[in-house]
Structure formats: structure tokens, C-alpha cells
């Protein structure tokens, strides 16, 4: 870690990736390292902290974004982004240290796995990415209107956007609503553009008879395809932990 001045301050941002990059920009240009970084939505004030809100500045964020790409490489962008989606505490300061060090060292930073914040960024990336990948398989869509498909999920990490993208590219002729019930957000797309909205006014329509038939066919297939002589509920549970079951159509 370069010799930056530690300042006794908590920096707050608006919870967006651009907001965090704005802080990275400020810290990088002033060579200072804050005590803590937190999103102002989740921040709980405490007597000892001196919080300061940093306004998100898109121009600064873009410069850092392209700087990362150029100096540290694409991988560093992906690492930081997925790490940012992870819900672990202290992810922000970990990303800051990782990026600042990365600007000094370049792409080789990713090999320095014995440095804890490098290891942690990559570990958190895996955690969030892993959940996103899992949900690419486990999300179930239901037809709730003519060519309108709805899917509900309860992810631990804030992976709705990359998850939504996957489905937008995969099923471009369907209108999709992907509902993140943990973070109360909904990804809406017509196959060409998308939007993420809060779910406060979301009404989930009921399903048609034809939809019911597909669900029943799937349940039948699911039951039939297992080999009874090889029953292995532990293994099944290990790959598909119980917390995912609530959003499935089939009954494991």
C-alpha cells in the first residue's frame, strides 16, 4: 500500500458504483485514505465518526473507470464491480485500497494474492458472481400476461443488474420482470432497453391456464428424471441450498 495519509473521517456516498468511483477519484488525487466508506442509506451515525457526504460526480467516475481499464486492466474492473455488488461490510475500503495499489503496480496487482485486500476483492467478486451464476440457472419465469414473464428471487448480493442483462440478451423477444425481493427492486426489460425500479407499487398478476400446464409438465419432468436407486438428498441440498427453494416451480 502506498504511503497515503490516513484521515480520521468516514466518507459517505449514494450507494452507486459511480459514487464509489468518485470517492476513489478524490482519495487518489489527494493521496488520502479515509477511516471508513459507507453508503448513506445504510450508514448508522455514531458518536466517534465524522461523516462527510461526497456528491457523485459522473465525470470523475468516468475518468477513474477508464483509468482502471487502461492502467490496471479489464479484470480489475470486473473484480471491483462484482466486489461492489457483494453485501459484505468494508467492501468499499477494500476496493479503494485495491484500486489505489493497482494504479501504482498495474495489472500485476491481481497476482499479489497474499495481500489481504487483493485476496478479499477477488474473493468477494467470486461470491457475488457465484450467486449471479447460480441464479442464471435457478430463476424461474412465469407467463403472467401475453408475452410477459415474471421471475422472483431473493439474492444475498445486489446482482440484479448483471442477472437481468443475462436474461435480456438470452430472451430478447420476451418482456421480462425480474424481481429482487431482498433489495425490493425489479428489473424490467422489453429486450432492447431496461430499467430498474423499486417494487413498492408492483402488482404481480396471476397466471393463465396454459402457464399452469407448463408448470405441471416441468414438475412431472423434474420428478421423473431422478434415478430412485441413486437417491441423494444431501447432494441435492448441497448444490441447491434450501433458501432457493421458495422461488422454484418444482418441489425438490
Amino acid at each position, binding site marked *: 500500500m502506498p504511503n497515503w495519509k490516513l484521515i480520521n473521517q468516514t466518507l459517505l456516498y449514494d450507494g452507486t458504483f459511480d459514487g464509489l468511483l468518485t470517492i476513489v477519484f478524490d482519495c487518489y488525487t489527494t493521496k488520502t485514505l479515509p477511516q471508513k466508506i459507507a453508503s448513506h442509506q445504510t450508514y448508522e451515525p455514531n458518536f466517534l465518526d465524522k461523516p462527510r457526504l461526497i456528491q457523485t460526480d459522473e465525470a470523475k467516475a468516468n475518468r477513474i473507470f477508464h483509468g482502471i481499464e487502461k492502467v490496471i486492466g479489464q479484470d480489475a474492473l470486473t473484480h471491483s464491480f462484482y466486489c461492489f455488488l457483494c453485501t459484505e461490510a468494508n467492501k468499499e475500503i477494500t476496493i479503494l485500497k485495491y484500486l489505489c495499489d493497482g494504479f501504482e503496480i498495474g495489472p500485476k496487482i491481481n*497476482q499479489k494474492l497474499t495481500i489481504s485486500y487483493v485476496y478479499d476483492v477477488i474473493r468477494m467478486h467470486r461470491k457475488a458472481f457465484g450467486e449471479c451464476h447460480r441464479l442464471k440457472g435457478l430463476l424461474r419465469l412465469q407467463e403472467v400476461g401475453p408475452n410477459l414473464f415474471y421471475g422472483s428471487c431473493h439474492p444475498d448480493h445486489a446482482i440484479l443488474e448483471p442477472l437481468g442483462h443475462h436474461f435480456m440478451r438470452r430472451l430478447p423477444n420476451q418482456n421480462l420482470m425480474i424481481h429482487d425481493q431482498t433489495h425490493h427492486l425489479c428489473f424490467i426489460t422489453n429486450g432492447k*432497453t431496461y430499467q430498474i425500479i423499486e417494487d413498492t407499487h408492483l402488482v404481480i398478476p396471476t397466471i393463465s391456464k396454459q402457464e399452469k400446464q407448463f408448470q405441471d409438465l416441468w414438475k412431472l419432468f423434474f420428478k421423473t428424471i431422478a*434415478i430412485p436407486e441413486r437417491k441423494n438428498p444431501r447432494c441435492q441440498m448441497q448444490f441447491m441450498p434450501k433458501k432457493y427453494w421458495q422461488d422454484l416451480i418444482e418441489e425438490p
Partner: protein
Amino acid sequence: MDIFQKLKILADSAKYDASCSSSGSKRKNGGTGIGNGETAGICHSWGADGRCISLLKILFSNACIYDCKYCINRRSNPVARATFTPREVADLTIGFYQRNYIEGLFLSSAVVGSPDDTMMLLISTVTILRQEYHFHGYIHAKSIPGSSKELITKLGLLVDRMSINIELPSQDSLKLLAPQKEKDGILTPMTHIAKSIAENKQDHSRKKSLFVPAGQTTQLIVGATPESDLKILKLSQGLYQKMNMKRVYYSAYVSVNQDSSLPTLESPPLLRENRLYQADWLLRFYGFQAEELLDDTHPNFNTLLDPKCDWALRHIDQFPVEVNTASYFTLLRVPGIGVISAKKIVMARRQCHLDFASLKKLNVVLKRAQYFITCQGKTMYPRKELSPSCIESSLLRLERNTSPTSSALWGDQLSLFSHLPPTKEDKVKCLTGNL
């Protein structure tokens, strides 16, 4: 017969095929049509047997004209028969895909009419999917033994993966249990597919059509016939080398028929199947040869230890190895060190010397490896405690505590972390927010 009854019969008949992978396809969707391929593959669910469900795995028909003795659908068995229409299969696939139940279709069939008739039915099904629905999702088709070259080529141009199951690992067993299938009826088309894939790879013209881009696989039944593990593993090795096979699947034999030429097994030999998968993995990714793992004096796997531990104990003179200097492939031969750990070690040691504490920081699991490595010349335990018999008993204790999860090898999840970064396009779109 309604679609529910057909699905029940024809999924039930397809369940013994072990193949479930949906990896290796890069088919893109340019904004029209439905679906795309995901190189790393995606598992959509896990059945009660712990196997990953990724594809709609069904037979087109189970009304077979053949009489293979190990098969539930043999002509002489009194089971319910059903046959789909191409339209039914295509519609079911699209309906399931739109709801994200599956990654695509795995279509196989019993032989109805003749091998060529059956192939025609498979081809028309896949044609509806690709040309009418513009479906770019994954399709794995089983080629029917004995069908003509022209039809194989035609099918190969439409699907992502093709397989012809060898099922019985020797000619004698084949004669005994599947008298109507000839060895040539299996190997000739297999060679034809392998050759066409290779030629297609050579062809660099931009407009070329893909031929079986995700490669060819096959399946061997384990435990229905007397072949040793060595014989089976050598066969796999040959298939990987000569046929450029993508995967060989092993399927523990489930006794479904009573027949004097078949063994009666109380339960399928799952441990043996698991050992074969472990060894197969060692052949494909760890640089091992079949003859190193087994030989005529040990033709079958140790039931108590996994193949790599077993090999290491028999070659204890090659250990311990120094993690700071050993080559990548030497590291891979250390019990407990896998591809991910070996890569991490090689990467991290360029930056600093590694000791046991730094290995822990890298999350390298030392439970097994600790007996086989040194860090800067030091072993984890005093050397005199490291007699081969001590190591063996420690490894056996570990093995007992970790129950075998053979199904860990069924799915695609193992490749998950080796394919971490998503495509560039994905990153840019994800990171720049609204389009």
C-alpha cells in the same frame, strides 16, 4: 395419449444417460430468435439423486426394434411405449426454455423402424427448433447406431453436441448383451464425427456453418460386464486421444432387467463410478496416464483412497515437493492440490516466497497436501513423523470423514470459477449503466 403421459414415459426412459453438460456453446443471439449458449454451461436444477438438470432430457421414442439385454426399453420388455412428434418436442423445449427451466434439449431415441428413419425424426425436430423458432440454445443429440453418414452430417450441422454411447466397454460384452449393435456401427460414425469436427475447425472461412461445436461425448456402463477399471480407463484414454472426445461419461449399472447374462446388483456401483470420474479428471487435466494409475497388478481402484492419493502413496519417493520451485504439473500431482490451487501457487510465488502461512492465506487446503510438500525446505511436521504408513493412515481418516459426493462431478459447477470474467460486452454494459 396426451403430452403428460408421453413426457412421463420418455423422460423416465432417458434418465439413465449420465450426460447433462450444457457447456461449450458460444451461439449468440443477435436480438432475434430465442436463446444463446453459455460457454461455462448452466445448471438449472438438481434432481432427488443430486444430479444436475440442465437439459430437457428425453427419448423421442422408446418403441425399440432392438433387444439389448441391459436396457429397459428392449423389445422383449413389457413396458409402456410412446413416441413424440417433432412438433411436440420442439414446443415443449421452447416452452421450458422461455421459463428458464432448461439450457436446451438432449434428444435421444430408441430405434424406431430403422436407424435412418429414427435419425430423420430427430433431424426434423431439431430443424423446427433451429429454423422455425430460431432457437440458439443448446442441443445435444444422440446419433443412432447404424445410421448413414449423410444423416449424421446433416444432424451435426444443427446441434451443439453429439454422442454415440459405447455403453459396453469391450467387443465381447457388446456381442453378449447388445447383439444387434455392431462395434463398427458405433466406431465408424464416431470416427466420422471426429473427422468432420476436425475439418470444420480447419475451415476458417467466415460463413462456415458450425459442426458439433461443443464436441462429441460417449457413455460407458460400469458394472454390467466383467471389464476391470484399467480396461475401462484405457478405453477412455484412447477415446480422448484418438477420437478427440470431449467427455466420457460413466454410468453405474442399475439392474433393470433379469437375464442370465447380467449380474444382479443390489445397488448400482456408485463408488466405482466415482473413482472412474476422479481418474478421468486426472487424465484430462492433471497430465496422468492410465497406466500410471493402474497396472496389471492393481487393475482396479483402491476403494478406500482416491486415485491420486493412492498413486502418491505408491510413489512416495517422489515426495515431498517444494512449492516454491516445483513445476505446475508437479504441483498438480500433490494430493489435495487441484487446478485452482496450483494456479494460485504459481502466480503468488512470483511475488514472494511462500510458507505454510501464506498457503493458508491463499486458501489452499492443506489437509492432504501437508504430507507431500515443503515450503522453503521445511515440512509441516518433523520428517520422522512422515513415514508412508503414517501418511496413509492420516489420509484414510480424512477420506472416511468426507463422504463421497460422486455427483460433484456431474455438473458444470466445477468449471464455474475457471471461467470467472464474463464477456467484455457484459462488463461494459453492466458497468456503464442504462443503455
